[in-house]
């Protein structure tokens, strides 16, 4: 029952994350969702995973968001949705109903635990290829991150920038230079 309560609260937190006005608030609600998920994972018996999820999902990702919001700025957006709100609500509810029906109409019989397994054995030996994949992912992610955040000398053709901005570039550049004082990477 505790898991059910935690899950319901997590769903509510997630909904709040979407509805939040500011981006920092949104990131904090997300951190709450991550923490609750980690608790639920622990209650399921996935102890190692819960710890990892707590540190990565709640800690690392939230810090990343805060960093990004600092760089990108927390300006409020103009109101108005692209997809009309009733349609969005309708499609999401329909999706939940269909998925719920699909999933809950064919529940498997509970199986017994297949002996004592050690997580590290399964992770490093049984799913060794996954470890390799993760290493490659992390490596490429870091490279991509550095590449994407590199300073560019000259802007692009300018048409997209011109059609959208109105002089915020100068402010932004000053702010960036202020924040990113330590050299992040060579070009």
């Amino acid at each position, binding site marked *: 029952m505790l898991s059910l309560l935690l899950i319901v609260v997590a769903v509510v937190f997630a*909904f709040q994350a979407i509805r939040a006005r500011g981006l920092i608030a949104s990131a904090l609600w997300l951190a709450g969702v991550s923490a609750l998920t980690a608790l639920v994972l622990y209650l399921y018996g996935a102890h190692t995973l819960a710890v990892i999820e707590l540190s990565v999902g709640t800690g690392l990702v939230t810090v990343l968001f805060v960093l*990004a919001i600092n760089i990108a700025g927390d300006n409020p957006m103009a109101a108005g949705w692209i997809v009309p709100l009733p349609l969005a609500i309708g499609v999401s509810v329909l999706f939940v109903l269909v998925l719920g029906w699909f999933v809950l109409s064919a529940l498997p019989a509970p199986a017994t635990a297949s002996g004592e397994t050690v997580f590290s054995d399964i992770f490093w030996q049984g799913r060794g290829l996954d470890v390799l994949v993760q290493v490659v992912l992390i490596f490429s992610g870091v490279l991509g991150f550095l590449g994407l955040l590199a300073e560019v000398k000259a802007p692009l053709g300018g048409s997209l*920038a011109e059609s959208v901005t109105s002089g915020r570039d100068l402010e932004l550049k000053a702010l960036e230079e202020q924040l990113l004082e330590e050299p992040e990477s060579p070009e």
Partner: protein
Amino acid sequence: MNLSPFTIGLIGVVGLLGVGFYGLLVSRNLIKIVVCLQILAKAALLALVAAGQAAGQIDLGQSLALTVIVADTIVAVMGIALGVQIRRRTGTLDVRKLSSLRG
């Protein structure tokens, strides 16, 4: 209705997926989009672990879920980096204005 732990987990999965997709439909800020992607990732984690527990192979479920965490964190990182870069070049994070891939 019997509420086995697996069923509870599935309720969580369906709920988080629904909220996450609703957020993707409704959010206009690029950073919020990344937040919604993270919500979807939590749902995936729950699904894997719940299935692992129901099948009696919790450690296998954990291993797979760990890969999901790594992958989704990298996705969040890339999304944020893209968002920052877009903000620098076009000055806005509003997806309504970022539609140059029009047909």
